[in-house]
Structures are given as structure tokens and as C-alpha cells.
């Protein structure tokens, strides 16, 4: 039977093994010290021969008994360096029913002159016990050492003499009985790992039982040793629980946790990385540069270089950044990344542990919210302006009507002023009616924005239809209109809006034409900028001072020409309609040269030249 090295070197006692000729096979350091000789040369020399001459005869006799299969314990006189006596215990080692050698322990006799074997076993740090093998697979404790009492919390007096099945509870009992049986049957040492609940608490140990044969070659005793592993096991268990907790924490978090090994320049990723961004983390850890390649180009400098700067050029422990990160499907995630940089004693970065948090939804919500707030502010400002202007413009003809009614009551009804005033009263009331219908138009234009559904509109055709009713005016003044919009152009929007836009722009162009040249209106459509479509509406009319008035021209009831009638509502409606369809309108103009309106729609159209 091979003897475990650990058994030799870990044992607190002086131990040795002899072969079947009684020569040392192995000794531990403690035994060599006891003899006062170096350990190595002892191997191969006889047990008897290394003892003082006075001891050799007795030693020879006891060794012979042990080699015959009997466990022997005797006290010898001074041995080697040991000034006083030494107690030897010689236990035969049995393999295949034959004695193959002897396992021995030595202990200074001074410690226990009465029960040397017990003292020796007590000196062993591990739990030790001896069982008597009885009939019907029953085992009785005949000895337990102090370590046994300490580890189990059971007093030795209660245990010794008791049967194993009265001391050890199930489920351990079935296991140990099984193992004992195995040792008895095979006559070989049996070892296993056992967890048992004792009065002193849960114990984990590596148990070995060694069968001892009697003179008839039958296994009559079992010597058991339990190497206590409770603390080790508890440590392992604590580590396992902690690891498990960490694993669940990793699963529970939606963040992508990482561990940047700075020397190797690799990143170890938690599960979140694949879940959040869809990237395969093979191999894991992967290269730092792979992560860097997913950072948005415009932010690489501030994020990747910034991180390296923080790690290598500063003593910062924390780093955080918000940036865009490419997902596996090519879309962009907005992430908030926070990391903790571990440094060595010299302040050099060693690792960084951190987490990437996907804040895309939050960001989008913030953007939506600020857009909504801006839109509400705009609408509120619009409403205030609308209320002011409408009250002002509504009240102007009303005030006139009131004044004329007052005047009429006080002047001679045959005077010229009376007739004029009566006509003016009518004119004022018609103006009032006109303003009210404007208000109605504006309000309905606003209302329609909510239920608006875009449809493809054939812009060129709608432009032609908008000219109906204006053709006569155009021809009267000798004007021409060039509609150069391609017939194939379709823009998503509302027919009615496009009709109103063109009708208002054309009638404005006619109204504010120049008297010094025939009116020429040109309407074109071009692709761009970007993927959008631009409609250009230009005339060679009077124009206005765009530098001074600029985009005010689109404001409600703003008027820029004194000698031509106008209510200042047309361009307000044009702008409202363009914006309802998601478009933008701007104007450029020069006095006496002409005016150009630029209408931009972001919807793409493939049928246009650049």
C-alpha cells in the first residue's frame, strides 16, 4: 500500500515506514530529528540497526511481531538524540492478505509513561479513533483522541464503548458503515470526504480508515484518521456563495460590466455587453481596440484618447463619459460609461473595472421632451401674437364703425359728409366681416394640423389648378408664368395646402408686380439639399427690403406695401401650410428686382435633377 507523502510530512508526530525486511522506506523530518540523524541516509538502513545496541534485541522482537501482523506498542530506552525513553507504535501494513511493511510512530516516553499509544494519538492534530470490528457489520469505538472530542464536541467517555450507529446520525451513518465495510473486505485503506453535523457544528473532513489484521489475518480493528477541512471548506463555501451572488448581480444588471487589463490591453466583458449591443464576446477577454472601434468616430478622440489620458497621465481613480456606441446591427446606442481605475503603489494603472449603461431611451425621451417644450413655447408665442394681432385688427374696423355711427347722429343728413360717413360705416363693417373670415381660416388651418395625414401630391398639377381664377388677372397685366415643376414630382402632403400655397404666392406676385416690366413668374423644383426637395418660386416684381424686414414678411397682418391693398394674411397662411407639411419656407428679395421664395421639403424624390 503506497503511503501518502502528505500523511508523512503533515503529521505532527514522528512517523516512519518500514518494508517487509524491517528497513526504512521513508521517515519524516520529525522522526529524523528525534533520532538526531539526517533523514535521507536513513532510507534503506534497518530499523533495528539505527537504535543503540542495548535496544536492538527488544526492538528485533517487537518488529518481528509487527511483521507477523500484530499492532505493537512498546517503550524503548534512549534512542539517538532522545535522552529519555521513546514509545514506538508499530502497525502492520496489509496488502493482498500479506504484511507488506510496518507503519511506525515514535514519541518521547516522558510525556505518557502509562498509555503511550493514547498519548501519541492525542498528540496528533487530526481526529483519530479506533474501532473494534464486531459481527453483523457493527463497529464499536475503542479509542478516540482529544482532537476527536474537540472537533465533534462529544466527550470521549461517552463515545468509547458505544456503537458507531449510536453516535453517528444518518445520513452520514450509512456512508461510513459502507466505507468501513469496504476497508474490512478489501483490507485496504479507504478515504473519503465527509460532512457531518456534530454538536460543535458542521464538520467537513477527509476520513481515512486503515484496517488492522489479527494473527489469523482477519480484520479486527479499524484505525481512523479525520483530517479536518472545515475551515478550508467554509472558506470555499463562502467564496462560492460570494461568486454566485456576483454572478446573479451580473445577470440582474442591464449594464455591460467590464474589466480592463491595462498591461495586456484586453477587456473582459460581462454578459450585459452582448445583451445590450449584440456584439459577440469571442474571445473574452477581447482587445481594447475592438471596443474603441465601436465608439462613434466624432467622439473617438474625446472618449478613447481621453480614457487613455486619464489612465496614464493622471492619478484619477474615476473616469466617466457619455458617448455613442455602435451596436452589432449598425445602429447607435447612447451610453453612459463609468469606471474605477486600480493603480499600483507607484500610481501606474493596473486595471479598470467599469460599466457601460445604455441610456438611449432616456436620451431620446429627453430630446422628445425638449422638442415638445420648444414646440409648446412656439405655439404659446404664436397664440399670444395671434391674440394681440387679431384683437388689434378686429378692433380697428369696429372702432371705425362705432365712430361713424356716432358721427352720423350728429351731422346734417343732407351734407356730403353724411353720405361719405354712411358709406364708410358700410366699408368698416365689411372689413370687420373680412377679418372674421380670416380668423376662421387661420383657426381651421391650425385645427387641421392635428388630423393631418400626408398623401402623395402631384405638385405640378396642383400648381396649374391654383392658377385658375388668377389667369385673367395675369393676362390683363401682360404677365407670364413658367411652371417648370416636373410632372412626375410627388411630394407627401396635402393637396389643399399646396393649392393654397401656390394660389397665395401667385396672387401676391400679381399684386406686387413692377409697373416697369412685364411680370414673369418662375416655379422650379430641384433635388436637395440632402435627400430633400426644394421648390423655388421667383418673380421680377417690386420686391421689398429683405435686409430690413426679412422673415417678418410671414407674420400675420404684417404689410410692406402702402399703395396696394392687402390684409397681410396670405403669406402667414403660406408659411403655416408649408410648416404643417413638415417643410420650411424662406424668402429673399431686392427692391425693384424681384422676390424669391424657397420652399424646402425633406421628403426625398428620385425624379429630380440635381
Amino acid at each position, binding site marked *: 500500500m503506497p503511503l501518502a507523502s502528505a500523511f508523512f510530512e503533515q503529521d505532527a508526530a514522528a512517523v516512519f515506514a518500514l518494508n517487509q525486511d524491517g528497513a526504512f522506506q521513508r521517515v519524516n523530518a520529525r522522526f529524523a530529528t528525534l533520532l538526531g540523524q539526517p533523514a535521507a541516509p536513513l532510507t534503506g538502513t534497518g530499523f533495528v540497526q539505527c537504535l543503540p545496541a542495548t535496544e536492538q534485541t527488544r526492538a528485533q522482537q517487537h518488529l518481528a511481531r509487527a511483521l507477523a501482523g500484530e499492532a505493537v506498542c512498546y517503550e524503548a530506552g534512549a534512542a539517538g538524540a532522545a535522552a529519555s525513553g521513546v514509545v514506538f507504535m508499530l502497525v502492520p501494513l496489509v496488502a493482498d492478505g500479506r504484511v507488506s511493511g510496518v507503519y511506525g510512530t515514535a514519541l518521547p516516553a516522558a510525556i505518557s509513561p502509562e498509555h503511550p499509544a493514547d498519548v501519541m494519538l492525542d498528540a496528533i492534530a487530526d481526529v483519530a479513533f479506533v474501532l473494534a470490528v464486531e459481527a453483523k457489520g457493527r463497529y464499536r469505538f475503542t479509542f478516540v483522541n482529544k482532537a476527536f472530542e474537540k472537533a465533534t464536541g462529544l466527550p470521549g467517555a461517552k463515545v468509547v464503548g458505544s456503537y458507531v450507529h449510536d453516535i453517528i446520525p444518518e445520513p452520514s451513518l450509512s456512508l461510513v458503515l459502507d466505507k468501513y465495510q469496504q476497508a474490512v473486505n478489501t483490507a485496504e485503506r479507504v478515504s473519503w470526504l465527509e460532512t457531518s453535523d456534530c454538536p460543535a457544528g458542521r464538520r467537513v473532513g477527509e476520513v481515512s480508515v486503515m484496517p488492522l489484521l489479527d494473527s489469523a489475518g482477519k480484520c479486527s480493528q479499524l484505525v481512523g484518521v479525520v483530517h479536518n477541512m472545515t475551515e478550508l471548506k467554509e472558506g470555499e463555501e463562502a467564496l462560492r456563495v460570494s461568486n454566485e451572488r456576483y454572478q446573479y448581480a451580473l445577470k440582474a444588471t442591464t449594464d455591460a460590466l467590464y474589466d480592463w487589463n491595462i498591461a495586456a490591453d484586453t477587456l473582459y466583458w460581462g454578459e450585459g455587453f452582448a445583451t445590450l449591443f449584440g456584439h459577440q464576446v469571442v474571445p473574452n477577454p477581447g482587445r481594447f481596440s475592438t471596443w474603441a472601434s465601436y465608439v462613434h468616430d466624432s467622439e473617438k478622440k474625446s472618449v478613447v484618447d481621453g480614457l487613455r489620458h486619464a489612465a496614464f497621465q493622471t492619478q484619477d481613480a474615476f473616469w466617466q463619459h457619455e458617448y455613442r456606441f455602435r451596436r452589432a446591427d449598425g445602429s447607435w446606442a447612447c451610453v453612459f460609461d463609468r469606471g474605477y481605475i486600480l493603480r499600483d503603489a507607484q500610481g501606474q494603472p493596473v486595471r479598470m473595472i467599469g460599466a457601460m449603461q445604455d441610456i438611449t431611451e432616456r436620451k431620446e425621451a429627453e430630446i422628445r421632451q425638449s422638442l415638445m417644450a420648444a414646440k409648446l413655447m412656439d405655439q404659446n408665442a404664436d397664440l399670444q401674437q395671434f391674440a*394681440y394681432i387679431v*384683437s*388689434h*385688427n378686429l*378692433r*380697428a*374696423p*369696429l*372702432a*371705425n364703425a*362705432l*365712430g*361713424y355711427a*356716432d*358721427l352720423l347722429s*350728429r*351731422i346734417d343728413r343732407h351734407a356730403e*359728409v353724411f353720405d*361719405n*360717413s354712411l358709406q*364708410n360705416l358700410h*366699408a*368698416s363693417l365689411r*372689413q370687420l366681416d373680412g377679418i372674421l373670415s380670416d380668423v376662421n381660416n387661420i383657426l381651421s388651418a391650425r385645427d387641421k394640423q392635428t388630423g393631418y395625414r400626408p398623401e402623395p401630391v402631384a405638385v405640378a398639377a396642383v400648381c396649374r389648378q391654383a392658377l385658375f381664377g388668377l389667369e385673367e388677372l395675369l393676362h390683363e397685366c401682360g404677365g407670364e408664368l413658367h411652371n417648370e415643376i416636373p410632372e412626375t414630382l410627388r411630394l407627401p402632403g396635402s393637396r389643399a395646402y399646396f393649392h393654397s400655397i401656390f394660389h397665395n404666392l401667385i396672387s401676391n406676385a400679381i399684386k406686387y408686380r413692377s409697373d416697369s416690366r412685364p411680370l414673369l413668374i418662375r416655379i422650379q423644383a430641384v433635388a436637395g439639399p440632402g435627400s430633400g426637395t426644394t421648390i423655388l418660386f421667383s418673380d421680377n416684381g417690386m420686391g421689398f427690403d429683405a435686409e430690413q424686414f426679412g422673415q417678418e414678411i410671414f407674420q400675420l*397682418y*404684417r*404689410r*410692406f*406695401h*402702402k399703395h396696394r391693398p392687402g390684409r*397681410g394674411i396670405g403669406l402667414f397662411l403660406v408659411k403655416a401650410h408649408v410648416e404643417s407639411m413638415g417643410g420650411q419656407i424662406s424668402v429673399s428679395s431686392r427692391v425693384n428686382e424681384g422676390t424669391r421664395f424657397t420652399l424646402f421639403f425633406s421628403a426625398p424624390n428620385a425624379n429630380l435633377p440635381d
Partner: protein
Amino acid sequence: MRTYLIDDDALGVYLTEQLLRAEGFSTDISAFQCPKMALDVLIKATTTMDDTVVFLDLNMPLMNGWQFLDALAPYKDKLLGHCHIYILTSSLALADLEKSRQYDLVAGLIHKPIDSEEIHAIQDQLANKTGAE
């Protein structure tokens, strides 16, 4: 009393003129639909030092009433005491009344249409001022 009406609304100008005449306010009434023309005339007239009453509309294209007053500001010292500007507006906005108080040249703000009581009040106000000088 020389009187200028500055208002782009022809109906309003005619009405105010007839109401002033009916109350015997003035026979020397000039109407300007373009504030810029009125501005030129008023600046030239500063040399004569004749008393002038101006009824100024606020809501006008190209140059509104406030812009007119701002354009007149450099001549303020010459005009004070001789030129009495009344804002005559159809607006009922309080903001306009508050703003009008920032202009020393503005003697008052009247909501259209002007009535006989308001005309008499202006006459009294002017008589007191000229009497005090």
C-alpha cells in the same frame, strides 16, 4: 391749432378729421397715410415753433407708431412744448399704454374712436399748457 393725423387707414383718417371738425377742434388738419412723409414735414416745421397736435396711429406698415417716435427722438428738445403727440389706436392692449409713458413727447393715449369728451379734454389740456407758459 395745426393738426396732423398719421394713420394708414383712410376710413380712420376721414372719421377722425370729421369728428375734430364737428367739435371745432381745428380747421388746419393734414392727414398722412405714410409716417415717413409726416416725419419730414414735422422736422422741417420745428423751425417755425408753431403749436402742433399730432394724432399717431400705432399699427402701420413699413414704419409703425413706435418707430416714428424713435425717429423723432433726436428732435425731442426742439419739439417739447410745441408738439403734442396723442397716440390714437384701436388697440386696447395695456402694454401699449405702458410703453407710451416712456416717451416724453407723448401727451396721451386715446382708444379709437375718439369721442367729443376726449376732444374737449385735449383742448383743455392744451389751453392750460399754453396759459402756463
